[in-house]
Each structure stands twice: as C-alpha cells, then as structure tokens.
C-alpha cells in the first residue's frame, strides 16, 4: 500500500555498532511528507539510536540517510537542524535554569544573521531584532498553550508542560521534519489523548512531518500511519496500523496476544 506524499526522509541500510553490539542493523524505511509516522518496538530495539543517527549525534557505521534527497549521514547535528530536522528527547533535555521564553528564544536567535558589533553595542537594529524575536517566542509558546509560563524557569514546570515546552523549542527551529522521542512517556490516558490532539494540531498548524517513537499503543494506533516496527535493531514490519496490528511476527515479538490495545505495553 502506497502512502501519499513524497519521501521526505529516506533511510537506507542504516547500521550502527557500539563496540561488539550492533544497535541498528541494515535498517531502511521512508517517511512521507505530511505524514505522522510511528516507530514502535521493544525496549532496546534501537529506536532512539535511529533518532540519534538521523540527527547527527552518532555517525552511522554504514548506510545512508537522505533528507529531501540530500545525504545527511556524517553531518554535524547543528547543520542537520538547519536543514530542517528537529527533535525532542526521551529524557527531557530542556535548558533547565532558563525561562521558558529563553528556551524558545535560543533557537530563534541561532537562525538569525545577527551582527556581532551590533549586538555588543546594543544598536537600535539589534534591539529591534530582539523585540521581534521576543514576540515570536511568545507567539510560539502561546500556540502550545504555554503563554502564561513564559517567565517561569523551565524545570519548575509540571512534567507534561515541560514536554510541551520541548516541542515548542523544537518547532522554533522551523523544521520540516519533527522527531518526537516518546512524547507521551509518563502520561496518563487523558494526557495521552490531549497529546495526540496536540500532535495532529502541530502537524496542521506548522506544516511539519512527524516521526515519533512511542510505547503507548493507543496513541500510535490512532494517529500514526504508517507504523514501522523495530526489533533487535532491524526492521520487523511496516505498514498501516491494521497491517501491523495483525502481523503475527509483530504480535509475538511485541504486542502480545489478547492484550487490550489501550494498555501500555512494554518490551
């Protein structure tokens, strides 16, 4: 079954070894533009490693990562970000001691061509840019419902809002592809439903393709299509939620028989 939209991200034969351990094994899959693609699999299947490879934190041992037709493997992370890939982290990595505003402002600032002397001397031009970016940051925070927390220190926010802040910060880099690493971790069913709605909204409002790793099956099955299943670093299956749900190998490796799909499963 072909999914519409061209392949924004195309991973081919991706392999990564750590000493004697092969964390990712000849892994290939495509992410189509405009989709919300999900990656699922037991713990240790290599999902986060794939994210780290795509975002340049690790270099692949072998294989290619094509984004909009361009090879990304081996590029520095900040270069990859500038090409249009952003991510959030499994264990939230905010700029803890900065305010929410500053968290979102930092990526906005990095995208601007600022003049060093202008900034140092505080010229009117520099000040104007500062104000503009400040407003944009507030807008972005408000778009995710974090407007009133702008001057709060990031790590004083409740957990669920910290996750949203991380998403806001990722969106500040104006990505074409947003990687979310277990965005619903630690959330109860109600929060998970709200997150699902948020993800769909983000895709719509920011015109961004989403690739997410998750263990909450109800979230994945409801909003993702296609779904890619990993096991032992390799591709186990890929397809629509129905395809995956009924695939016997996936079921035995990960989903289990007779489990309610809205129960959190773990590998």
């Amino acid at each position, binding site marked *: 079954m072909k999914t519409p939209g061209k392949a924004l991200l195309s991973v081919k034969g991706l392999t990564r070894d750590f000493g004697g351990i092969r964390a990712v094994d000849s892994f290939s899959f495509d992410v189509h533009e405009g989709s919300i693609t999900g990656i699922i699999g037991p713990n240790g299947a290599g999902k*986060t490693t794939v994210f*780290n490879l795509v975002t340049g934190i*690790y270099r692949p041992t072998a294989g290619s990562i094509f984004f909009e037709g361009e090879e990304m493997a081996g590029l520095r992370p900040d270069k990859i970000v500038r090409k249009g890939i952003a991510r959030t*982290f499994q264990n939230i990595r905010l700029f803890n001691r900065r305010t929410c505003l500053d968290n979102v402002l930092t990526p906005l600032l990095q995208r601007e061509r600022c003049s060093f002397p202008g900034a140092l001397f505080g010229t009117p031009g520099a000040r104007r840019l500062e104000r503009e970016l400040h407003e944009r940051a507030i807008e972005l925070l408000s778009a995710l419902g974090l407007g009133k927390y702008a001057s709060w220190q990031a790590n004083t926010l409740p957990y669920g809002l910290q996750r949203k802040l991380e998403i806001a910060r990722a969106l500040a880099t104006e990505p074409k592809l947003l990687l979310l690493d277990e965005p619903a971790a630690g959330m109860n069913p109600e929060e998970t439903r709200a997150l699902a709605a948020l993800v769909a909204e983000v895709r719509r409002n920011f015109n961004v393709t989403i690739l997410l790793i998750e263990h909450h099956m109800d979230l994945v099955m409801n909003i993702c299509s296609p779904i890619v299943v990993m096991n032992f670093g390799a591709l186990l299956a890929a397809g629509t939620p129905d395809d995956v749900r009924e695939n016997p190998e996936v079921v035995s490796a990960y989903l289990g028989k007779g489990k309610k799909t809205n129960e959190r499963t773990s590998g």
Partner: protein
Amino acid sequence: MWPGLFLQTLITGLSIGGIYALMAVGYSLVFSVLNFSNFAHGAVIMLGAYVGLALAAKLSLGFGIVLAGSIAGAGIIAVLNEKLAYSSLRRRKAPSLYLMISAMGCAVFLENLVYATIGSRFYAFPEFFGRQVISIGGSSVSLLDVGAFLFALVAILGLHLFINRTRTGIAIRAGVSDMTMCSLMGVDLDRLIAIVFLLAGGFAGVAGVFLGIKYLVYPTMGWVTNKAYIAAVIGGLGSLPGALAGGLILGVVETFVSSYISSVMRDVFSFSLLIAFLVWRPNGLWGTDSEEKV
C-alpha cells in the same frame, strides 16, 4: 657500545617516566571509574611525600616502612578526600564541572595549609640509596633511577593483575562501564569507590616518596602532576596501560629534550607535545572513543 650520555639520559628518562606513570595511573584510575579529572591528585602525592618524610626523618625508619607508611597514609587521605569533597556531589549526579571545581579547591586548600603550617622550606629525604651507582652498558646509572623505574613497572603490573583477576578488580571494571547497573546488581558502590581511591592514593604515596627522594619535598611539589595529566592524555585518558606508556614516553622524551636541547624548554616541550596529541590523536595511544549516552 651505547654512548654514555645517551644511556644515562635514557635511564634517567625511564626513571622520571616511571614516576610520571605512577602519578598518571592513580589519576586515570579515578577518571575511568568516576568519569572526572581528580585535580586534587597532586595534593595527595605531596601529602604522601610529607608522610614518608616524617617517617624517615623524624622516626628514622627504613625505606620499606617509609614506603609502606606513605602508601597507607596517602591512601587514607585519598579516601577521606572522596568522602568529604566528592561523594555528595556524586550522589547528586552533579556535572563533572562541579567535581573538578571541588577537586581544585581541595588541592589549593591542602597545598596552602601545608605551606602555612609546616612552611615553605624544601626538605630532603635521608639518603636511602646513597650515591650508589650501578654499571649498565659501560655507564654509571644511579640505583635510585633504576629502582624507581622497576618499582613502577612492578606496581602497575600488580594493579593490572588485580583489576583483571580479583573479584574486586572485576567489580571495578564493571563500574567503569556502567555504574548504575553495577549498583543495581548489588555491588556496594560506596565501598567500591573507596577501594578505587585507596588504590589511587596508594600509588600517589609511592610517587610522592620517589619524587621526594629524587628531588625534594615542598608544598607545591604536587604540580608536577600536570605532567602526569599530560602523560595520561598521551596514553589515553582512563586507560591504565596508557598511563604507563604515556608516563614513560613523556619522561624519556622530556629528558632527551632536556639533555640534548635545553633543560629550560622542557615544560614548553611537554605542553607542545600535549597540543600535538590533542590535534592529531586526542584519544591518545590506547584511549577508547567514549560517546555520551543520549
């Protein structure tokens, strides 16, 4: 026949290299287990020398006992150092920046405490080895130099066996790869870390005594340890064979530069060697590429 100067330079270089290696091993041991640079190591070396000096000069004890006393003394000081200055930071999972600052604080505190109480006078150890020389290949080399080199080799070999053959040693190696997993498997982390510091301190004590005998004992002698850090980088941070190799290489090359070119430029040369390694081979000769887990 080896030319006399060459052989003498080599032996002297190996001797000082052996001392660098002893210093580097203690530093690398802590680095590999706790993942931070214990910049207080130099101060422990210095205190080990003073302990040895007290035993030798005040109590007129023999070399063996003096050495044993330094090992014990420095070991205990190192364990105390860990308990007071690092353990609470470690438990809080404080960044290595905090640990380095605390380490530096300890070094400055201890060094200047000695300076302020015992004084800045340079002390000499009693003549343990006399001016004894032995003849190797037709040249006379000092017994002390040969002794220091051999001792370093034996001690480091002993440590290597300990780490690889005994239960505690294996626990230490496990801790090196994964601290958290180690504690989850029931290893008493505090005890393990205390043992690591005891070992590191012991080596520091030996280094201190040899340094004190070869040169002199004074409060700021700990800063020779900068050479040990450079040696550890050359050999590969965190690697014990690397510390040995790095120490010997640095000692020998430095001494040759000192003998054949200029003794004044020795420190400039060491710094340049460090930079050269950092530019071309930052992981050193034996280092492994450790990437942070994301």
